[in-house]
């Protein structure tokens, strides 16, 4: 079913990229099915879709990481086979990956030249590259110091290096995979200005994202992928976020979270001047203090890497703090060791970790084995002689699967074989099972598809309404704003401001995330 697919006749010269009938299967899984996609030269073309919809596979085919099983790729109207990324670069295609492919101890210049050196001597290549970079910087607002060490640069600047790398290789078509995931709003704006400038110079840009706001803000056309197919390609001006969301999921989606005003009770958990200095001597947390009441969601906003993760892990008992205190109902929590996870659970603090792949789940374990992870020493799962009561654990797992609509509904399937959204549901179901007094949630919907996001958000709000205290860490400002009753913004390990959710807006939060408090005059 390819409704309204835009092919505009084969081999048209104004098309930078044309995919005709591209299919790709991995074993029994059809990752891409009969894809027809036409990207006009000099436009920004967005591709949206849920996780596992096939966006990344499609782009990997375009960049030569995978070979399509069927179909044809045309670049600038000419059929162009792309067996590897070298061929993609030769065809003028450049890619900026979600996770940067940079050598951190190298300078910007060295990174740009890496793999594109001409001749055996490095010096002439570097000199030529320096000139080229100057030109690119001037033309596209891509300012980076060519002699800076990449590891010292901010994430936004590192991304600019990636773009420079592609442009230095004379890319005319630029693919960006989730480029704003790690950027502050200001950095994202900067990126969009760069992209607009590139488009105006006649470059073609393919933007893969799950953020509908970005699609609306910057693209000229947008293709929606669902289950390996392109279900629709639309001019951006003629669509709306609600329509796109519906196309992605295949049904109507609630983008806002319905929630009643909070009715906060007494203080449940509080942090007092929490500080953390890491092994390298860097201060990761500086005197962080806050309190959270029963029936309240405190959202912790900030660009990734400003101390939120460390804060969450300290409260969860899996990272020691350097100084400060944390109190649960007035009684102190032990912050001295990294092995207090069991103690926290016993005291009613549940934790949905930021990284479910590394922490929240044991991937090779079956779903039922993961259903007792962290609760394996509780009496309800214990049989005689130190054995585990498998029937009890399985019953709990089956209950979770039913209650959270986890699919496929099989408790014998390995955690690794569930989709991101269902993995997250396994974790959240397990942590909510015991009606904890405090729920620590990190990135609850990272890599989770829209349908499941809606569900997870509703569960969090329901838990709040049952009088629990919730601390939510997320790099998605939308999510923080949609769920939180109060928002605490972190910058460089310190609290840069706390706002009531209804009294603030994205602009103010964005400034706070950059360490600027618009209300405090003279503050850094």
């Amino acid at each position, binding site marked *: 079913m390819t409704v309204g697919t835009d092919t505009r006749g084969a081999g048209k010269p104004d098309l930078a990229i044309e995919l005709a009938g591209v299919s790709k299967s991995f074993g029994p899984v059809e990752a891409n099915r009969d894809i027809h996609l036409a990207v006009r030269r000099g436009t920004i073309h967005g591709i949206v879709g849920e996780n596992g919809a096939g966006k990344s596979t499609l782009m990997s085919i375009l960049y030569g990481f995978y070979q399509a099983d069927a179909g044809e790729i045309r670049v600038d109207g000419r059929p162009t086979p792309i067996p590897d990324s070298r061929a993609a670069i030769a065809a003028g295609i450049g890619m900026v990956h979600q996770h940067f492919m940079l050598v951190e101890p190298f300078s910007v210049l060295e990174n740009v030249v890496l793999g594109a050196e001409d001749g055996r001597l490095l010096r002439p290549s570097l000199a030529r590259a320096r000139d080229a970079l100057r030109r690119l910087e001037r033309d596209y607002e891509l300012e980076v110091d060519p002699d800076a060490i990449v590891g010292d640069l901010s994430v936004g600047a590192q991304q600019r290096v990636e773009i420079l790398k592609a442009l230095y290789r004379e890319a005319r078509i630029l693919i960006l995979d989730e480029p704003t995931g790690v950027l502050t709003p200001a950095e994202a704006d900067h990126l969009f200005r760069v992209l607009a400038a590139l488009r105006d110079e006649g470059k073609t840009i393919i933007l893969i994202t799950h953020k509908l706001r970005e699609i609306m803000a910057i693209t000229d056309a947008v293709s929606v992928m669902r289950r390996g197919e392109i279900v629709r390609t639309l001019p951006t001006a003629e669509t709306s976020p609600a329509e796109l969301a519906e196309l992605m999921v295949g049904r109507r989606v609630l983008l806002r979270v319905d929630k009643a005003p909070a009715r906060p009770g007494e203080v449940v958990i509080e942090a007092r001047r929490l500080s953390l200095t890491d092994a390298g001597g860097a201060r990761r947390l500086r005197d962080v203090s806050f309190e959270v009441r029963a029936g309240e969601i405190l959202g912790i906003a900030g660009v990734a890497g400003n101390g939120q993760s460390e804060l969450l892990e300290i409260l969860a008992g*899996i990272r020691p703090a350097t100084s400060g205190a944390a109190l649960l109902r007035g009684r102190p929590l032990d912050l001295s060791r990294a092995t207090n*996870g069991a103690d926290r659970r016993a005291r009613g603090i549940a934790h949905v970790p930021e990284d479910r792949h*590394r922490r929240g789940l*044991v991937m090779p374990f079956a779903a039922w084995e993961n259903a007792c992870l962290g609760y394996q020493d509780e009496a309800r799962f214990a049989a005689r002689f130190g054995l585990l009561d498998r029937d009890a654990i399985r019953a709990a797992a089956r209950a979770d699967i039913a209650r959270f609509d986890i699919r496929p509904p099989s408790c014998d399937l*390995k955690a690794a074989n569930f989709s991101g959204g269902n993995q997250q549901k396994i974790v959240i179901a397990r942590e909510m099972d015991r009606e904890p007094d405090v729920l620590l949630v990190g990135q609850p919907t990272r890599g989770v598809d829209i349908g499941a996001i809606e569900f997870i958000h509703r569960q969090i709000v329901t838990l709040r309404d049952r009088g629990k205290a919730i601390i939510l860490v997320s790099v998605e400002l939308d999510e923080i704003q949609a769920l939180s009753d109060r928002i605490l913004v972190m910058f460089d390990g310190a609290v840069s401001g706390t706002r009531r959710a209804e009294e603030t807006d994205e602009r103010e939060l964005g400034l706070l995330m950059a360490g600027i408090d618009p209300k405090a005059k003279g503050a850094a």
Partner: protein
Amino acid sequence: MRTSPPRWADLALIPAVNLLLALLVAGLVVILIGENPLRAVELLVTGSLGSSYGIGFTLYYATTFVFTGLSVAVAYHAGLFNIGSEGQAQLGCLGVTLVCLALDRTHWLLVLPAAILAGAAFGGAWAFLPGWLQAKRGSHVVITTIMFNFIASALIVYLLVNTLKVPGSMSPESRTFEAGAHLPFFHEMLAAIGIRVSRTPLNLSALIALLAAGLAWALIWRSRLGYEMRALGHSEPAAVYAGIDPARIIVIAMVISGALAGLMALNVIMGSQHRFVLDSVGGAGFVGIAVALMGRNHPAGILLAALLFGILYQGGSELAFEMPDISRDMIVVIQALVILFTGALENLTRAPIERLLARRGAG
């Protein structure tokens, strides 16, 4: 996107194909020497399984390998590569020997529990130190256990030469135990119920090995401790998240692993030699690594793999005897090929077989 192969392929097909490859290459070597490979296989099989004598020896060797294989497997499930089963087994031999020397004027039923405790305690203690160093100091257990093998070896030589040796004797070995510290042989036990088989060193500890395999299975897959060990083995961050103290689990897993290695002394020292000789362990700890690898670290697989290595050991001796051109070293080559193909090169066949099965599943 790759799905794992079905269980039967993982547990049976891939090891079988690897074993076949090993035998094919071994056959080529036999041809190069100028012998008939089919005749060699025949001798190997009849030598190990063709008589009650052969079977007895095969099972005797297999018993030792079950203990050392389980030792490697238990540590493996906690994410630890215990190369030190060899040294831990040597210490286990020391422990069992000391108990037997002290109690051999009583009855084996009394000596056995004490010997089990001593073998496990000495082997476990020898693994405790590397485990503790890994847990508290981050010294890699692979390195430390290798070093502990050398220390154990030197220690045992010292003790056999200077302390345990019978005064006036030229050989570095302990005195032979009195009958009170001899485990019953199978041929004796079977004779008691009227079944006559050849005299072989196969003894009661074969049953203890079966019991140990059962207990190891329950430990790894049914107990809370095993759950915590496997969680740690798969993902340390997840284990820490789940309130598991990695240091504690590492030490416990290593001690259990060392204890299992030490128990092989029941078979060799108390079961057959009835004294501690210099080469009592004889590389069984290293064979245990191959057995665990081939048995996919599952007790059932380890029983089968230990049996296979028992066949190779016993059949190999017969082969060397019958075909003078095939020396003792040749047998070691064949064993090495099996280890190479089933252990180190295991992924050689895994990927093609997985692809084949996936294609069949898709089509």
